């Protein structure tokens, strides 16, 4: 154990601003990515729900492996 108390831990021997900036930015960026994935999924599911109603009524379902 290197630290005798919280204030020593947060100051990181005077390098605290650099170190905590790096860790904070990393956490924010990762949480943003998780949020974007979740929001994208929600909007896709909403679209699919609306889209499928029309698709099932008006046209026959396409063969899923016909493309490419």
């Amino acid at each position, binding site marked *: *154990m*290197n*630290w005798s108390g919280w204030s020593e*831990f947060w100051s*990181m*021997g*005077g*390098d605290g601003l*650099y*170190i905590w*900036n*790096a*860790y904070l*930015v*990393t956490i924010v*960026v*990762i949480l943003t*990515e*998780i949020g974007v*994935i979740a929001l*994208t*999924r929600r909007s*896709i*599911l*909403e*679209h*699919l*729900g*609306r*889209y*499928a*109603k029309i*698709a*099932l009524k008006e046209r026959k*379902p*396409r*063969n*899923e*492996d016909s*493309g*490419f």
Partner: protein
Amino acid sequence: MPAFSSALRSDDPPLLTTWSAATPQRGYALATRLYPWFGWAAVVLCTLGLFVGLVLAPTDPHQHEHYRIAFIHTPALWLSVAIYFATAIAAGCSLARRQRFLSMFASALAPTGAMFAFLALWTGSLWGKPIWGTWWIWETRLTAELLVLFLFLGYIALQEAIDDARRADRASGLLALVGAFGLPLLYFSIIHWSAMYGNAPRGLAAPGNPIITMGLLLMGLGLFAYTVAATLARLRNVILKRERNSEWVARNFGARS
């Protein structure tokens, strides 16, 4: 998730017997089952890694506490490069085999790779400021990493800009392949000629302390598990978006709204 049990029917072609038989439907079911495991592994490993790195690891005699940025910087750097080559290989195989699933996988990988490339540059410049006295220098590895970030952004931009998925795959796959051949060429050519310019790479010497090595290893494994979890979770989005016209998507997801 409950809606998906019906997608794992035994009459579907298996995903992994040959890559050419990999179908988006099988891939979706597999990703759905796997990504929570990798997500929890990432949480556990990163928590352990942060504890080892920030609390247990000793003060470095030369860089004091400042080296602790390495517990993010080093895994982010290696992962961004590894993800780049994984993206290029998946995109290249999809071009060669005319295989849809691999191109979906490639486009699910790229955003996490771009994120790690950004983090590697950001934490690298935070590291460099007190040690080199500047946020940025045009040094071999920094320039190569900047190029990795730009290649990822170019790949994502091409995918987003072209509406037709097949044309988008072809254009972005070509870019990924050019980068995959160009990056090592650039990197090693600068290393080779760096003696002329006095531009040899420098940075943190390999840590000799077993606790520091343990912290780096835990953070590396944790962020790798995160990469897999995020990629699989995004792969599900990519598959649903591209396969919205297929019957199984309508059958499983059409009822919700």
